[in-house]
């Protein structure tokens, strides 16, 4: 299914008149992985919030597996689309890790035992089973990020959307995160400034700038297109070379 996630002519303007999204259209295949790249203030986070119906009435159309995003469907859509926020402190608020990870499944109608099983499976996936009784705000940043991902995975989403997941992570935590994402057999949208991570996790990417999609292509083609990279204020980290991937 090539248009598992389908966005058509989506626009959005904030109350202060700032146009964050301007006629966005894109399709994403089931179990596909799409990177969303772009400079600060390009509209990336606004697009993510739309994928969860958080910004209210849509000016455009979005559908997931043929189900349109409407007020009637919003609960199912939120269960199907898991959103991992940029700052895990915004996401984790329950007294213990286990209660936080069970929060989503319980709200989406799973029984207590089912929710507990789902939470433990999700925590095992992110290697955080030893922390179930800890308070989330006493964890390190990397651990919080893993719990935030588990809290979304526990609801068994069909699509997981991550906002800058590698920001503020040390290299080892970033590596662990990439390995976790690579093992997930679901559709992934990754918003990031971490271009090597996008290259490793997502086969395709798009560049969003000033609320408009500038290009959708394979991540490799985008990263090697110097002109488009420069135009959109993107650059690879110093010393990072793509040539070894060309074979």
């Amino acid at each position, binding site marked *: 299914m090539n248009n598992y996630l389908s966005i058509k002519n989506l626009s959005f303007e904030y109350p202060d008149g700032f146009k964050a999204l301007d006629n966005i259209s894109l399709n994403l295949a089931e179990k596909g992985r799409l990177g969303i790249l772009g400079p600060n203030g390009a509209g990336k986070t606004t697009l993510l919030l739309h994928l969860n119906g958080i910004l209210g009435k849509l000016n455009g159309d979005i559908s997931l597996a043929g189900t349109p995003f409407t007020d009637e469907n919003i609960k199912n859509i*939120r269960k199907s689309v898991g*959103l991992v926020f940029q700052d895990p402190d915004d996401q984790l*608020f329950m007294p*213990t890790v286990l209660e936080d990870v069970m929060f989503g499944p319980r709200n989406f109608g799973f029984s207590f035992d089912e929710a507990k099983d789902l939470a433990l499976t999700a925590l095992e996936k992110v290697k955080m089973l030893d922390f179930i009784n800890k308070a989330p*705000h006493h964890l390190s*940043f990397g651990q919080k990020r893993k719990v935030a991902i588990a809290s979304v995975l526990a609801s068994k989403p069909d699509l997981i959307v991550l906002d800058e997941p590698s920001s503020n992570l040390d290299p080892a935590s970033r590596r662990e995160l990439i390995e976790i994402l690579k093992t997930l057999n679901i559709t992934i949208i990754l918003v990031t400034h971490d271009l090597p991570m996008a290259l490793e996790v997502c086969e395709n990417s798009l560049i969003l700038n000033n609320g408009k999609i500038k290009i959708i292509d394979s991540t490799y083609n985008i990263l090697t297109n110097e002109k488009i990279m420069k135009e959109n204020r993107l650059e690879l980290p110093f010393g990072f070379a793509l040539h070894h991937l060309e074979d």
Partner: protein
Amino acid sequence: METSHHHHLEIHNFSKLNAVKPQTKLLVIFLIILSIAFYKMETLNLFFIHVSSVIYLLIISKITFKTYIKRLSIDIPFVLFAFFLPFISKGSGKVAWEIMGLAVYETGLIEMRNLIIKITLCVTLAIILTATTSTVEIIYGMQKLKISPLLISIFSFAIRYIDVFIDELKRVKTSMKSRGYSEKGLKNLKPIAFASGAMLIRGYERGERVYNSMISRGFNGYLELHDREYISSNTIFLIGIFCLATTIFEQFVI
């Protein structure tokens, strides 16, 4: 962004009180505070029941004297206020004595004594509760006592974000100091006012982001906490009832 742990009030000393059901502690402490607040202090010999109950709870909580005195300092503003009462509370108008031409009223003196005793006892109870009950347990206890889910949510968010706010405040202060800011002097209050404003806006924005993350996980207004294991204590429960009964007896019988 890591949070520090040093400002938590709970003392992990594994006293008997630490293991008692938090709902029992909350209820009993509420009952004793209520009994103290409504005690008219006319029959002082019966008030020893309240005083000895609080002392008993303080002893079994195993709070060290140093910690107790340190935390009791929250009492100071109330005590300072109480010192004004002999000068302003006339009551029957009977003057006990005069200090530099100012009349010290007898009623005011009694009110001062009562206020200081009552406030100190209530603050002691709050110290006992917070030292033997973690914030999670307080929330759990509130839930068991069937307090409104909305109130519990507000309380739990307040606690949850105190850490985050303290850390943010520290970062703001560090960044101010690193640019040569000194806290001394009245004129230096202006940057503090701006920083506080920035903190308020940040707090509001964080609140919005937290709410967004909650509704994206299907939040329906209820925070579910899991069952935990505690011991029941009839003695502690009886202490609360006994204090309340004493106050009722003083109010309506004597």
